[in-house]
């Protein structure tokens, strides 16, 4: 078993709980085992998570590869079930209420999808260069994503985009990612500056490139069609922005782009979050001394915006520690993946890294105003049992696979 990964995991969990304790504890709190408070409950969730981790480690490693599709379809059914029996919390129909206990299947869909994808791509006869392989892989990924989107949980659905990194590692052309990023950039630039100016700029750029580089003229068909596609894309941006996206999403994007100042409305969260983090300074205000985070100035303090507590109380140094811990975990997972004998384990490992990376990057970016507000938790930090268990299961299945790597032929 790779102890480094386990230590990194435990460090993040402890750091996370300390932040949660500071964020949700009142100043004269009594016991850390006070289960009426969030930090007390989270302690219970952590205990259960460790129990789950232990169970995964003692189960036979083959269990997960063998039952990968079973898990996947169970999750798919439960996601469909949500559409009929789900509880709506904060606008998203993504909870099963069982007695006092609420479970969020979309959290578990991540590791199930990673398993299924690894199972499929791990087969010898698949090849990313084949259309069929691509089509099946993308279907495996999009199925749960679409169901989650139907629950109105855009943030969790977006997570499935991260699997593109897995596909890339397994041979998907890098151009697809580059083109995807370029289109995303074009989308944002168009929203900010308007279709007309962006279209003019694109044409001007094309003319300039053609004039300067003679070699391009041989491939004029490709370039001309790219320009054409870009222009069509640009012309659709406005419609998409205004009619496909929902108004709260629209406002969040506009706020992030600085097109809209709305410190009391949609921009409130980010504004308060940036103030809390920014006021932390280099070394922070000290543990349990965050006057904004402790006095409820940041909404969703203990869940999606838990990073504010770290930023305010621990400052730049503490934030850097958090970022380095995550980066170390991610790189370690990549390294472990690459040493796997079985394609299944490797691909699953990349799936784990991709999901954790997406959560980590998007959550932090949104708290510091680099990304529109999408409600996804910071792994191991944000309050909530489902999220903590799902990430623990996700990671420990991989740790188990890694521990078992020498037994794979």
């Amino acid at each position: 078993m790779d102890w480094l990964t386990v230590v990194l995991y435990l460090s993040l969990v402890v750091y996370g709980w300390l932040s949660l304790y500071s964020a949700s504890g009142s100043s004269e709190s009594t016991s850390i085992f006070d289960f009426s408070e969030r930090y007390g409950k989270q302690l219970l969730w952590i205990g259960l998570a460790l129990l789950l981790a232990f169970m995964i480690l003692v189960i036979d490693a083959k269990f997960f590869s063998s039952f990968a599709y079973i898990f996947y379809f169970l999750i798919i059914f439960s996601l469909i079930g949500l559409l009929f029996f789900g509880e709506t919390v904060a606008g998203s129909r993504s909870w099963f209420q069982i007695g006092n206990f609420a479970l969020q299947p979309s959290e578990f869909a991540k590791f199930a999808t990673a398993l299924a994808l690894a199972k499929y791509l791990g087969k010898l006869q698949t090849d990313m260069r084949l259309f069929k392989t691509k089509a099946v892989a993308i279907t495996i990924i999009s199925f749960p994503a679409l169901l989650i989107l139907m629950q109105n949980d855009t943030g969790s659905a977006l997570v499935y985009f991260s699997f593109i990194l897995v596909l890339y590692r397994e041979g998907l052309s890098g151009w697809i990612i580059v083109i995807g990023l370029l289109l995303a950039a074009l989308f944002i630039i168009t929203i900010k500056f308007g279709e007309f100016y962006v279209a003019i700029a694109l044409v001007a750029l094309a003319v300039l490139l053609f004039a300067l580089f003679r070699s391009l003229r041989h491939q004029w068909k490709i370039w001309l069609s790219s320009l054409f596609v870009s222009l069509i894309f640009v012309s659709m941006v406005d419609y998409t922005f205004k009619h496909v996206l929902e108004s709260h999403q629209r406002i969040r994007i506009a706020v992030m782009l600085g097109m809209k100042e709305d410190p009391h409305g949609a921009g409130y969260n980010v504004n308060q979050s940036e103030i809390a983090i920014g006021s932390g300074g280099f070394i922070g205000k000290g543990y349990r001394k965050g006057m904004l985070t402790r006095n409820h100035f940041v909404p969703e303090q203990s869940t999606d915006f838990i990073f504010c507590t770290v930023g305010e109380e621990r400052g730049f140094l503490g934030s850097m520690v958090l970022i380095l811990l995550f980066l170390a975990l991610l790189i370690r997972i990549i390294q472990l993946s690459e040493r796997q004998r079985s394609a299944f384990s490797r691909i699953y490992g990349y799936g784990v890294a991709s999901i954790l990376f997406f959560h980590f990057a998007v959550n932090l970016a949104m708290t510091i105003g680099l990304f529109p507000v999408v409600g996804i938790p910071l792994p191991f930090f944000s309050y909530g049992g489902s999220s903590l268990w799902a990430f623990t299961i996700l990671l420990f299945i991989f740790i188990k696979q890694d521990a078992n790597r020498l037994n794979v032929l």
Partner: protein
Amino acid sequence: MYRKDYSARKYVIIAGFTLVAVVILVRLFYLQVYTNQYKLSARDIALRRVIEYPARGRIYDRHHKLLVYNDAVYDLMVIPRQVKSMDTLKFCRLLQISKAFFIKMMAKAKHYSYYKPSIFLKQLSQKDKGPIEEIMYEFPGFYFQTRTLRHYPYPIAAQLLGNVGEVNQRDLKRYSYYKPGDYIGKSGIEMFYEKELRGKKGSRLVEVDVHNNVKGSFQNGKFDTLSIPGADLTLSLDEKLQAYGQLLMQNKKGSIVAIAPKTGEILAFVSSPTYNPNLLVGRQRSKNYNRLLHDSSKPLMDRASSGTYPPGSTFKLIEALIGLQDGVVTANTWFTNQGPASKPIPSDSYISPVQMKLAIAASINSYFWKTFRAIMDNPKYANTHDAFDAWRKKVLSFGLGHRFNTDIPFEKPGYIPTRAYYDKVYHGSWNAMTIRSLSIGQGEILVTPVQLANVAAIIANRGYYVKPHFLISMSGDDTISGKYHKKYKVPFNQSYYKVAREAMTEVFTSTHGTAHAYYMKSLSQAGKTGTVQNPQGKDNSMFMAFAPVEHPKIAIAVVVEHAGYGATWAAPIASLMIEKYLRGKTKRPLLEKRIINADLIHNQKLKKP
């Protein structure tokens, strides 16, 4: 199928992860280390400076009766930035204000500052704030601040005590201590002892939560300062005597000043017409203030220290003392009211010739004209002008012509004309004859009632005075009580003072005495009337006195404007005051009734053409 090895792509992916982490770190560095803007915003939204207003010092009279104390009121404060959408109608209904008023006050507060607290509604009583207090959490951005207002259990000495009001632009410019909305002593004792009475404001930096609840002090009160309560003052005023003086002076214009001659402590400081000091407190303050300000009888003016009057015949005592000291007359000098020299000051008396004491008792003008002429023509001096300078110097030694510069508010210096003044007016050519009105205290000479009372004290003290003042003690400062204890000598021969005192006694005892009507067998009094011609109307009625004659405990001056003879109004008022102070109550109820019921203001108006 052949499988290509893509394992090198891990470097691209690791590089991608690292790049994103670096971008996030750079942004964090900008937010947390590079820019200061978020630290400032954080202070703005999560900290509030709460000013702790100390209780203003209380004011007591000489018998430790509480004259001025504080009532708690509550200012409703607003920080516009923290105001969120709320039930404005409910808010207005609970506070009993109109929507228009709400909008107006919010605009005003925003105009001042979004981040700093402004006063939204001033001076609510506990009863006013009761209905809204329990649900303040529904109205983020609003909170109550405790303030104090002055309250006067005895409605006396309004002009002297002065009043407290909000600082104006000029105060704010002049003193950095005050912030808009602070209170400051605007006049009188409140203004003179402002620094001592106000104490020192404290401030606390507190953390608030998003609902604007105070969560406790910031960093264990590292940035807090304690407020220091204002000092309590004990004044020399005698509440009963002051109230009695105001009663006697009701419906009359004028003033009474009573001094304890040995100490210079002012016992009564009446200026009439006056007003109830409670009028200039609270939300009605500016309305009432404007009404008083534009009242033609000038109730805001303190006549006791800023009313200046020619002393008239009361000045004859000083004339006599100077004549005696200069050796140009003796107590036994006889003057008649006959002869050409008497003409310029026509005698109103049938008694002639007379000696000095009777001349004082019966207030015979011709006698003092002749005395004054003798002083001015004194061969000791090279000319009249030098003699005048010597005369003036002696007059000034009685505390006239300049301010005492103690804690008497609104003090005017009065005026004793100078040689230069007459040189200018008469182009250098003048003599005793030219300035003869000075002999009977008329003409350019002006004194204040408090100066006149001090002259009575000097004669009572046989040649010295302690500057008239109010402060007896101040809590927290033991050195202050000695501040006004210095004795000022008025160097005339004791035997001359004896003449003056006997003459003033005869004003009551002699059948020719102008105040003989107020003679009391059981209580020895000494005094001098003055009936001062007045270009604006009827004569000013004046009187100065002290009592008991042998061991004087009170020296007093009374001025009743446009009332007529000194003997008719000022003398009985002085005598009743003396009796009140020394005996507690009067044995002359009819006299008292006549004075109290006399209305000299409104009658006069009727007589005006």
